Protein backbone atom coordinates (compact mmCIF):
# COMPACT_ATOMS: atom_id res chain seq x y z
CA UNK A 1 0.00 0.00 0.00
CA UNK A 2 2.85 2.38 0.85
CA UNK A 3 4.29 1.73 -2.56
CA UNK A 4 1.02 2.47 -4.30
CA UNK A 5 0.73 5.69 -2.31
CA UNK A 6 4.20 6.71 -3.38
CA UNK A 7 3.38 5.84 -6.96
CA UNK A 8 0.27 7.97 -6.85
CA UNK A 9 2.15 10.83 -5.24
CA UNK A 10 5.06 10.70 -7.69
CA UNK A 11 2.72 10.48 -10.62
CA UNK A 12 0.35 13.10 -9.39
CA UNK A 13 0.42 15.47 -12.32
CA UNK A 14 0.29 19.17 -11.68
CA UNK A 15 -3.21 20.62 -11.66
CA UNK A 16 -3.91 23.49 -13.96
CA UNK A 17 -5.25 25.44 -11.03
CA UNK A 18 -1.79 25.28 -9.45
CA UNK A 19 0.11 26.35 -12.55
CA UNK A 20 -2.33 29.21 -13.19
CA UNK A 21 -1.58 30.57 -9.74
CA UNK A 22 2.15 30.46 -10.45
CA UNK A 23 1.63 32.42 -13.67
CA UNK A 24 -0.57 34.93 -11.88
CA UNK A 25 1.97 35.63 -9.14
CA UNK A 26 4.69 36.05 -11.75
CA UNK A 27 2.45 38.45 -13.67
CA UNK A 28 1.88 40.53 -10.54
CA UNK A 29 5.63 40.64 -9.82
CA UNK A 30 6.30 41.82 -13.35
CA UNK A 31 3.62 44.45 -12.97
CA UNK A 32 5.30 45.75 -9.81
CA UNK A 33 8.70 45.89 -11.46
CA UNK A 34 7.49 47.57 -14.67
CA UNK A 35 5.44 50.07 -12.71
CA UNK A 36 8.53 51.04 -10.73
CA UNK A 37 10.73 51.16 -13.82
CA UNK A 38 8.40 53.22 -15.99
CA UNK A 39 6.39 55.07 -13.35
CA UNK A 40 3.20 53.84 -14.94
CA UNK A 41 1.14 50.71 -14.95
CA UNK A 42 2.11 48.26 -17.66
CA UNK A 43 -0.53 46.92 -20.02
CA UNK A 44 -1.42 43.27 -20.29
CA UNK A 45 0.71 43.00 -23.46
CA UNK A 46 3.76 44.34 -21.66
CA UNK A 47 3.36 41.59 -19.10
CA UNK A 48 2.54 38.95 -21.71
CA UNK A 49 5.74 39.79 -23.58
CA UNK A 50 7.86 39.29 -20.46
CA UNK A 51 6.21 35.96 -19.66
CA UNK A 52 6.11 34.90 -23.30
CA UNK A 53 2.50 33.73 -23.13
CA UNK A 54 -0.77 34.98 -24.63
CA UNK A 55 -2.55 37.96 -23.04
CA UNK A 56 -5.64 35.77 -22.75
CA UNK A 57 -3.72 33.22 -20.70
CA UNK A 58 -2.64 35.90 -18.24
CA UNK A 59 -6.26 36.95 -17.81
CA UNK A 60 -7.21 33.34 -17.09
CA UNK A 61 -4.34 32.97 -14.63
CA UNK A 62 -5.16 36.17 -12.76
CA UNK A 63 -8.70 34.98 -12.26
CA UNK A 64 -7.36 31.92 -10.44
CA UNK A 65 -6.02 34.08 -7.60
CA UNK A 66 -9.01 36.39 -7.45
CA UNK A 67 -10.54 36.49 -4.00
CA UNK A 68 -13.80 34.68 -3.88
CA UNK A 69 -15.83 37.34 -5.59
CA UNK A 70 -17.35 39.68 -3.07
CA UNK A 71 -20.31 41.74 -4.03
CA UNK A 72 -19.70 44.02 -1.07
CA UNK A 73 -16.02 44.83 -1.19
CA UNK A 74 -15.30 46.83 -4.29
CA UNK A 75 -17.14 49.92 -3.14
CA UNK A 76 -16.07 49.98 0.46
CA UNK A 77 -12.45 48.87 0.25
Amino acid at each position, binding site marked *: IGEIRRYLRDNNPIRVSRSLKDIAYKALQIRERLTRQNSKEP*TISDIAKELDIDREDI*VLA*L*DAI*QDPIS*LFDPIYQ
Partner: protein
Amino acid sequence: MKNYMEISFLAKSENEAFARVVVASFASQLDPTIDEIADIKTAVSEAVTNSIIHGYDEDESKLVYLKCEIEDNTIKIVIEDNGNGIENIEMAKQPLYTSKPELERSGMGFTVMETFMDEMIVSSILGEGTKIVMKKTIKSNKREE
Protein backbone atom coordinates in the same frame (compact mmCIF):
# COMPACT_ATOMS: atom_id res chain seq x y z
CA MET B 1 -10.03 47.61 -34.33
CA LYS B 2 -13.34 45.83 -34.62
CA ASN B 3 -14.28 42.51 -33.13
CA TYR B 4 -17.37 40.67 -32.02
CA MET B 5 -18.41 37.61 -30.05
CA GLU B 6 -21.51 36.31 -28.37
CA ILE B 7 -21.94 33.56 -25.85
CA SER B 8 -24.70 31.89 -23.92
CA PHE B 9 -24.31 29.62 -20.91
CA LEU B 10 -26.39 27.92 -18.23
CA ALA B 11 -27.44 30.08 -15.28
CA LYS B 12 -25.18 28.20 -12.88
CA SER B 13 -23.11 30.01 -10.29
CA GLU B 14 -19.97 28.26 -11.59
CA ASN B 15 -20.45 30.11 -14.83
CA GLU B 16 -20.08 33.51 -13.24
CA ALA B 17 -16.30 33.10 -13.03
CA PHE B 18 -16.34 31.64 -16.52
CA ALA B 19 -18.26 34.61 -17.96
CA ARG B 20 -15.96 37.17 -16.42
CA VAL B 21 -12.87 35.39 -17.77
CA VAL B 22 -14.45 35.19 -21.23
CA VAL B 23 -15.17 38.92 -21.33
CA ALA B 24 -11.85 39.91 -19.76
CA SER B 25 -9.94 37.75 -22.16
CA PHE B 26 -11.82 39.21 -25.13
CA ALA B 27 -11.17 42.71 -23.76
CA SER B 28 -7.47 41.93 -23.47
CA GLN B 29 -7.25 42.61 -27.22
CA LEU B 30 -7.56 46.29 -26.30
CA ASP B 31 -4.40 45.95 -24.24
CA PRO B 32 -5.78 47.18 -20.91
CA THR B 33 -3.97 47.29 -17.59
CA ILE B 34 -4.66 44.70 -14.91
CA ASP B 35 -6.76 47.31 -13.08
CA GLU B 36 -8.92 47.97 -16.11
CA ILE B 37 -9.41 44.21 -16.54
CA ALA B 38 -10.42 43.93 -12.89
CA ASP B 39 -13.05 46.67 -13.36
CA ILE B 40 -14.57 44.87 -16.33
CA LYS B 41 -14.56 41.54 -14.52
CA THR B 42 -16.30 42.99 -11.49
CA ALA B 43 -19.03 44.62 -13.59
CA VAL B 44 -19.63 41.43 -15.58
CA SER B 45 -19.79 39.39 -12.38
CA GLU B 46 -22.45 41.66 -10.95
CA ALA B 47 -24.60 41.58 -14.07
CA VAL B 48 -24.32 37.81 -14.51
CA THR B 49 -25.04 37.20 -10.83
CA ASN B 50 -28.13 39.36 -11.10
CA SER B 51 -29.41 37.36 -14.06
CA ILE B 52 -28.85 34.08 -12.25
CA ILE B 53 -30.22 35.11 -8.85
CA HIS B 54 -32.86 37.70 -9.63
CA GLY B 55 -33.70 36.97 -13.26
CA TYR B 56 -33.91 33.21 -13.00
CA ASP B 57 -34.22 32.59 -9.25
CA GLU B 58 -31.28 30.19 -9.64
CA ASP B 59 -33.05 27.93 -12.14
CA GLU B 60 -29.92 26.36 -13.62
CA SER B 61 -31.65 25.18 -16.75
CA LYS B 62 -31.99 28.75 -18.05
CA LEU B 63 -29.52 30.56 -20.28
CA VAL B 64 -27.69 33.84 -19.79
CA TYR B 65 -26.78 35.71 -23.02
CA LEU B 66 -23.69 37.82 -23.34
CA LYS B 67 -22.44 39.86 -26.30
CA CYS B 68 -19.20 41.81 -26.67
CA GLU B 69 -18.32 44.28 -29.37
CA ILE B 70 -14.98 46.01 -29.68
CA GLU B 71 -14.77 49.17 -31.71
CA ASP B 72 -11.60 51.24 -31.60
CA ASN B 73 -10.72 51.43 -27.91
CA THR B 74 -14.19 50.77 -26.57
CA ILE B 75 -15.74 47.54 -25.47
CA LYS B 76 -19.51 47.23 -25.34
CA ILE B 77 -20.86 44.40 -23.21
CA VAL B 78 -24.50 43.30 -23.31
CA ILE B 79 -25.81 40.86 -20.70
CA GLU B 80 -29.33 39.54 -21.08
CA ASP B 81 -31.72 37.12 -19.47
CA ASN B 82 -35.26 36.00 -20.28
CA GLY B 83 -36.18 35.98 -16.63
CA ASN B 84 -38.43 37.81 -14.19
CA GLY B 85 -37.64 41.34 -15.27
CA ILE B 86 -37.53 44.44 -13.06
CA GLU B 87 -40.67 46.32 -12.10
CA ASN B 88 -39.10 49.63 -11.14
CA ILE B 89 -35.68 50.17 -12.67
CA GLU B 90 -35.05 53.50 -10.93
CA MET B 91 -35.64 51.93 -7.54
CA ALA B 92 -33.56 48.85 -8.41
CA LYS B 93 -30.61 51.09 -9.31
CA GLN B 94 -30.61 52.87 -5.94
CA PRO B 95 -27.53 52.02 -3.87
CA LEU B 96 -28.33 49.47 -1.17
CA TYR B 97 -31.71 48.58 -2.65
CA THR B 98 -32.21 44.83 -2.86
CA SER B 99 -35.32 42.76 -3.32
CA LYS B 100 -33.62 39.77 -1.70
CA PRO B 101 -32.33 40.95 1.68
CA GLU B 102 -32.85 37.40 2.95
CA LEU B 103 -29.97 36.28 0.69
CA GLU B 104 -27.72 38.92 2.23
CA ARG B 105 -27.43 40.73 -1.06
CA SER B 106 -25.68 44.07 -0.76
CA GLY B 107 -27.89 46.01 -3.13
CA MET B 108 -24.73 47.48 -4.67
CA GLY B 109 -24.61 45.59 -7.97
CA PHE B 110 -25.89 48.37 -10.21
CA THR B 111 -23.82 50.95 -8.34
CA VAL B 112 -20.70 48.85 -8.90
CA MET B 113 -21.47 48.48 -12.62
CA GLU B 114 -22.02 52.21 -12.97
CA THR B 115 -18.84 53.02 -11.08
CA PHE B 116 -16.53 50.60 -12.86
CA MET B 117 -17.80 51.12 -16.39
CA ASP B 118 -18.10 54.37 -18.39
CA GLU B 119 -21.73 53.77 -19.24
CA MET B 120 -24.50 51.45 -18.08
CA ILE B 121 -28.04 51.22 -19.41
CA VAL B 122 -30.67 48.90 -17.93
CA SER B 123 -33.79 47.91 -19.79
CA SER B 124 -36.30 45.39 -18.57
CA ILE B 125 -39.81 44.13 -19.13
CA LEU B 126 -41.57 42.50 -16.21
CA GLY B 127 -42.00 38.80 -16.91
CA GLU B 128 -39.88 38.97 -20.05
CA GLY B 129 -36.36 39.70 -18.97
CA THR B 130 -33.58 42.19 -18.40
CA LYS B 131 -30.83 43.63 -20.56
CA ILE B 132 -27.76 45.50 -19.35
CA VAL B 133 -25.59 47.41 -21.81
CA MET B 134 -22.22 48.58 -20.52
CA LYS B 135 -19.36 50.36 -22.22
CA LYS B 136 -15.80 51.04 -21.27
CA THR B 137 -13.06 52.79 -23.17
CA ILE B 138 -9.55 51.52 -22.55
CA LYS B 139 -7.29 54.52 -22.27
CA SER B 140 -4.04 52.85 -21.42
CA ASN B 141 -3.14 51.85 -24.95
CA LYS B 142 -3.29 55.49 -26.01
CA ARG B 143 -0.19 56.14 -23.96
CA GLU B 144 2.82 57.55 -25.76
CA GLU B 145 5.91 55.44 -25.71
